[in-house]
């Protein structure tokens, strides 16, 4: 692959990742509003509208226009800087809080290595089923004789399950060897933006929020790092794509490291400063914490960075614990259902379809985890600050240390174990894959049947207005007056 192609592919990957992140960041503001509305039996914002001039068509798009309206509003609002604020740092802080989030996603793999030469190939044949050799658009038979009447066709080849080609295309912007360490390094930078924002604002609330943000994020940084050490030991690598491959061949991280998954999830929510750990912006106490003084697009950047952090933390969670791009039993060569050494079912799937499926799987998983984070955000009340610190230092940190210890013992034990035990472990891993597949199928079936079931209605006619509505056949929509 020459340099030009490398550059083009790198730009394409950046476009996909950054585009996904920005769109998900915008989408999450919408998800947050509409999902919370659905949870709380409301309709949610749906008033922002694009009117097409000359017609009566109004586009509301389920309230998605509010996201665009928000962006516009941010641009046109006054960019207020407090008179005694440190103007340089005040302007720098939103950038500092947004940049690490964007840089963080560089190492996250969103698909397996793509064998560019094996996406599609051309062959030629005279008799169906007897392919000939194709060379520069001309067909040759076994004796290297030109065959004139052969037809050239395109086909989608299947690649072997193990081993990727040397010239393959990594589906990560920067497939670094130090993947996880890079994530630790950049995730720590998020503190700086919050701290500087609070310090430079010349506002007591901002300063309090910044202090809280700094101490909270430093505390949970430790937990995040330690909770992933177990995963590193288990997978035997810090390369994120190797971690995902391990999960595809064995079992998802959530089965191998359930405690670490839980600890990481809690710490990641604390790290993104969202409810129930949103002490740095606690509205009832600190107005809006470290970004109290911010307005306009600077506020928008903090706001947006928070949602993008949700997306990136979901990406890391998916990569390390939820199998990344892997679906159960789907490997590079297609669908292989096996139990230990025994293969039950095999279906060869072309490389191009596997690749597309895997990329979609990764982004789908990220969206599901983001949505789950929104559920958490709208279900739980805020902790008190001392409780937050107590959970961080006295509960999660010892638990993650214990997790490292236990994982170390178990990994050592598994390495020394007899062949029988290792075969048993392999079977257990395959059973876990089957469990995931069964769970996904069950959820889909329950969802479909749940959708088909009509709602149980009961009519309550209380008062003459209800009677009037009932006589009209329900509360009808009428034309707007004035």
């Amino acid at each position, binding site marked *: 692959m020459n340099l030009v192609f490398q550059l083009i592919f790198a730009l394409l990957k950046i476009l996909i990742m950054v585009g996904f992140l920005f769109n998900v960041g915008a989408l999450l503001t919408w998800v947050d509003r509409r*999902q919370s509305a*659905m*949870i*709380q*039996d*409301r*309709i949610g914002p749906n008033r922002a509208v694009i009117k097409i001039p000359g017609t009566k068509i109004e586009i509301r798009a389920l309230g998605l226009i509010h996201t665009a309206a928000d962006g516009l509003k941010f641009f046109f609002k006054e960019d207020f800087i407090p008179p005694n604020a440190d103007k340089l740092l005040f302007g720098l802080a939103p950038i500092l809080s947004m940049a690490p989030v964007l840089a963080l996603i560089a190492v996250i793999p969103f698909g397996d290595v793509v064998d560019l030469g094996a996406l599609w190939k051309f062959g030629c044949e005279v008799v169906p089923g007897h392919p000939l050799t194709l060379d520069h658009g001309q067909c040759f038979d076994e004796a290297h004789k030109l065959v004139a009447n052969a037809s050239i066709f395109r086909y989608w080849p299947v690649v072997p399950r193990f081993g990727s080609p040397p010239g393959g295309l990594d589906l990560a912007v920067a497939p670094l060897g130090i993947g996880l360490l890079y994530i630790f390094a950049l995730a720590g930078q998020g503190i700086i933006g919050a701290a500087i924002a609070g310090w430079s604002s010349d506002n007591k609330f901002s300063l309090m929020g910044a202090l809280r943000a700094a101490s909270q994020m430093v505390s949970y940084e430790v937990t995040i790092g330690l909770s992933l050490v177990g995963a590193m030991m288990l997978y035997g690598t810090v390369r994120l794509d190797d971690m995902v491959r391990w999960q595809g061949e064995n079992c998802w991280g959530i089965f191998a490291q359930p405690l670490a998954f839980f600890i990481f999830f809690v710490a990641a929510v604390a790290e993104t400063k969202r409810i129930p750990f949103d002490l740095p912006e606690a509205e009832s106490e600190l107005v809006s914490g470290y970004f109290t003084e911010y307005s306009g697009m600077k506020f928008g950047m903090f706001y947006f960075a928070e949602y993008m952090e949700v997306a990136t933390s979901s990406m890391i969670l998916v990569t390390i614990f939820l199998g990344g791009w892997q679906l159960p039993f789907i490997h590079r060569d297609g669908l292989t259902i096996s139990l230990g050494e025994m293969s039950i079912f095999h279906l060869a799937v072309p490389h191009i379809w596997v690749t597309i499926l895997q990329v979609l799987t990764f982004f789908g998983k990220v969206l599901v985890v983001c949505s789950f984070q929104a*559920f*958490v955000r*709208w*279900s*739980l009340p805020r902790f008190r600050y001392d409780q937050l610190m107590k959970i961080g230092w006295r509960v999660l940190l010892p638990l993650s240390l214990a997790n490292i210890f236990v994982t170390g013992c178990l990994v050592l034990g598994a390495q020394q174990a007899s062949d029988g035990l290792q075969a048993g472990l392999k079977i257990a891993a395959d059973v876990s894959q089957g469990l995931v597949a069964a769970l996904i199928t069950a959820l889909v079936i329950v969802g479909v049947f*749940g*959708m088909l079931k*009509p*709602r149980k*209605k*009961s*009519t*309550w*006619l209380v*008062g*003459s*207005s*209800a009677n*009037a*509505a*009932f006589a*009209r056949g*329900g*509360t*009808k*929509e*009428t034309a*707007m*007056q*004035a």
Partner: protein
Amino acid sequence: MNAFPKKAALPANAVVVSPEERSIVTETYLPEVGRGLAVSMKHFFQNTKEMLRGERPDPVTERLDPGISTISYPEQKRPYPERFRGVHRLTLREETNDPRCVACLCCSTACPAQCIFIEAGEYPEGDKRRGYERFPVKFVIDELRCIFCGYCVEACPCDAIRMDTGAHATPYDSRDQFIYDKDLLMAFPGRDGGHASANPRHEPGDPTHPGVTREQGSH
């Protein structure tokens, strides 16, 4: 001194759990987190399903059902009760489309908010109604001042002013637009869509009401 000397009695069904008695599972806070998430998800999936299937509960007739019962005002409106006192209207005589009002000023006298202004006029010489009744040259109601008490309707001897339009005053952007004059008040239909009153009007000479006559001083 203790401001609250008596200890508040516990409700009969209260269960007291001291911190020492909580189990370690309760202390982890996790079962309740799970339960809370389950409640959220139940509401979310049910409401999303109803929105997608287009079978949201009717906000008025099915308002006690679980689910979203928001009224999307102004596209959707809760029907007002039958006896709702809405914007006033002046009822008309069926035969002439004149207002039934005889400018007796009973309504403006009864009005506690003094929002009705009537300028009474005499019918011209030779009109059969002259000397028997008058008519409103001006009939103005300040809808911003009106408190919608309905006294004017009760005071009217001719059933000429009613509040059965079933509509509230439309919001405008300036105060003078709330001063409703006679023509506007006569233009509002009632709930049945007509401009007349359900109570029949008996002109002098009506055989069903033999006592009604235009002769002054005869009764």
